[in-house]
């Protein structure tokens, strides 16, 4: 360890003692961990719902639950997974913890606002879960809240809408905090093009959070107004237009997909150089592609609505832009692979997850183009194909990147090492289970299996059985992974300051970091990712 005299953030005692030193802490590292525990908790809640749905679908007809229960489950599974886990996930957990450290700051720009965001997040998340149990029954609209059903449904839709609104507000405040932090608090000498790439990804993400989330906020308020006041914005009987809702919803919710995936890309961009011991390939290209994804991602929302009724030209335009947005993603994949090329690769768990991220993200990305093309979209729209594509991007992309991040930064966060072999075995379960769970859904989707369906025709049974088996393998892997990390947090061997021989700033301070991160704010004199190898000059 670096400096024994310094008190780590885990042991630091401020004005408050015990649990309050966490719940009232404005330390970005502690808030990061608060988010982490909340995310893990809610993830297992939503994953359990997912597993129950898979059990229901193991055979045609009723297996373990009623159709209405199933509707409630896929709705709340979606709401929790999207709004509580995937959208805040990487940015709120690892962004909070590592953004200030990576740019050489002692904290985010607005520490109190940061804590406030966490409280908003918890209120929203608990309200979302509560909607399952209180009010007039679990919401059954799906996480997309499409009108007219979300206005007509007798279930507690308002609870879920309010939950999503509050979570959106929390997301805006986090984004705002990060933008200001990056603009104002970089260490001396850290010019924009000397900033590591995870902060760059967070920067692009934060702008989407700030500029897109208010639109869904007002849209959700309009749906609440429709339900309570019967205003008629989305009701054709009163002159409104249901398709308008879909536009407003996807104006946010498509960019939201990039809120999820951009930080994921940022994480693996940190991991590849470290475990290849080589400067990242094409730093500038990665920066520009992050910003390009954030920008173009705004203008593709219509591809969710090809079958909803849009003009031919609108569809053509949205389809074209959807193909365009694939290009910066592909540039990143090229850069990651080129970073590994010729490097001294150390296949530790973080890299395993990062490589599987590329693999799964590629499958998710290519099937996204199948959906983005007008002709094939008509066939695959609202089928299990969409479910599979979506989970490959979100779970295979963001989820595996989250696992990569936690295995990469765990020694820094807790100051302890986890068991490598157990982590590798858990990875094996996760990777095999994941593919077995979702790949069959591509096939039955193309054959015509509708999504959000409780029952199905007998010809889809093989696919569903395989998928459910995969779900059990995956959940085994997830539990194994979490147990491994929990054991390590308590009893793992002490971690050195720099177990992976990384070169970014977080590896230059002790593990776990001291309360104020840096004794002295470092001076930055060069681009990041210099490993002192012969490639140094090419970077």
């Amino acid at each position, binding site marked *: 360890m670096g400096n024994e005299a310094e008190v780590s953030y885990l042991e630091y005692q401020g004005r408050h003692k015990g649990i309050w030193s966490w719940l009232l802490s404005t*330390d970005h590292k502690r808030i990061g961990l608060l988010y982490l525990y909340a995310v893990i908790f809610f993830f297992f809640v939503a994953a359990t719902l997912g597993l129950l749905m898979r059990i229901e679908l193991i055979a045609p007809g009723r297996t373990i639950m009623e159709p209405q229960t199933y509707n409630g489950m896929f709705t709340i599974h979606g709401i929790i997974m999207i709004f509580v886990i995937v959208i805040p996930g990487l940015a709120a957990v690892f962004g909070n913890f590592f953004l200030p450290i990576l740019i050489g700051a002692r904290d985010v720009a607005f520490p109190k606002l940061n804590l406030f965001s966490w409280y908003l997040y918890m209120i929203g998340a608990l309200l979302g879960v509560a909607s399952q149990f209180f009010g007039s029954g679990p919401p059954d609209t799906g996480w997309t809240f499409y009108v007219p059903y979300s206005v007509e449904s007798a279930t507690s839709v308002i609870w879920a809408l309010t939950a999503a609104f509050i979570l959106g507000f929390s997301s805006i405040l986090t984004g705002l905090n990060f933008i200001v932090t990056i603009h104002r608090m970089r260490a001396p000498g850290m010019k924009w093009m000397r900033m590591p790439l995870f902060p760059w990804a967070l920067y692009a993400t934060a702008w989407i959070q700030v500029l897109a989330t208010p639109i869904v906020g007002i849209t959700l308020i309009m749906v609440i107004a429709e339900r309570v006041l019967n205003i008629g914005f989305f009701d054709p009987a009163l002159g409104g237009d249901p398709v308008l809702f879909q536009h407003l919803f996807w104006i946010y919710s498509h960019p939201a997909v990039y809120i999820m995936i951009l930080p994921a890309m940022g994480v693996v961009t940190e991991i590849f150089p470290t475990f290849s011991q080589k400067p990242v390939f094409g730093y500038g290209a990665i920066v520009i592609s992050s910003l390009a994804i954030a920008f173009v991602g705004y203008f593709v929302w219509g591809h969710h609505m090809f079958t909803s009724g849009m003009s031919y030209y609108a569809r053509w335009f949205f389809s074209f832009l959807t193909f365009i947005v694939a290009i910066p993603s592909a540039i990143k994949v090229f850069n990651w692979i080129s970073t590994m090329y010729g490097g001294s690769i150390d296949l530790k768990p973080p890299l395993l997850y990062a490589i599987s991220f590329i693999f799964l993200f590629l499958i998710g990305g290519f099937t996204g183009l199948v959906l983005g093309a007008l002709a094939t979209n008509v066939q695959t729209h609202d089928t299990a194909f969409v479910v599979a594509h979506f989970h490959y991007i979100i779970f295979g992309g963001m989820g595996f990147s989250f696992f990569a991040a936690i295995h990469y930064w765990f020694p820094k966060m807790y100051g302890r090492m986890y068991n490598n072999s157990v982590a590798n075995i858990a990875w094996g379960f996760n990777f095999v289970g994941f593919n077995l769970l979702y790949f069959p859904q591509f096939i039955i989707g193309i054959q015509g299996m509708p999504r959000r369906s409780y029952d199905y025709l007998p010809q889809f049974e093989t696919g569903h059985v395989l998928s459910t088996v995969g779900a059990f393998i995956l959940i085994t892997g997830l539990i194994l992974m979490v147990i491994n990390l929990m054991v390590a947090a308590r009893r793992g061997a002490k971690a050195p300051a720099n177990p992976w021989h990384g070169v970014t700033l977080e590896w230059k301070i002790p593990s776990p970091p001291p309360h104020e991160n840096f004794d002295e704010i470092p001076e930055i004199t060069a681009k990041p990712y210099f490993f002192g190898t012969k490639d140094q000059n090419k970077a």
Partner: protein
Amino acid sequence: MTDNHTHTEHLDSETGKLGMWIFLFTELFLFGGLFLVYAIFRAKYSADFHLAAEELNAFIGTINTVFLLVSSMTAAMALTAIQKGDKRLTIFLLLVTILLAALFMVNKYFEWSHKFEYGIWPGSPVLKNMSHGELLFFGLYYMMTGLHALHVLIGMILLSINVVKVKTGAVNSGRFLMLENSALYWHLVDLIWIFLFPLLYLIT
């Protein structure tokens, strides 16, 4: 909430203002969603919107516009006053701002209750019998002015907190970020009204 950060230096005002400006952008986008809906329905039902807009009292609207414009000026003057260190003048100007905001709300109250007397409120039977465009116009009217009124209320609370802080000296000539940000917020409330007023009252 607490401050157990020994290092929390004084939040420098550039940082604080940048945060506020970004927040104001999100507010614009929040209203932007409603403006978008307005534009779409206006294009679809322009004749109905014309009829419905004539129902609104442009006179009250104009008075309220004057109130808000003047209050924006007094808010800006309060900021200049605190920069010059004139505590009493600052408090006076802030109170004038709050008073004008309150007058705006009173006017709004009478305007809305007048509409209610005619049976025009969201989902009312009278409204249901009107044409689709008129119905949507009043829906938008209540939604937009309602959301705006909520912002006026929040602004009034912010300004009142500033009055207390100026009194206790927590906001002073060397440290006026909070007042500056509150004034920025108040200008936004004003700015949104500047768009709402013609869209709802004047374009007939």
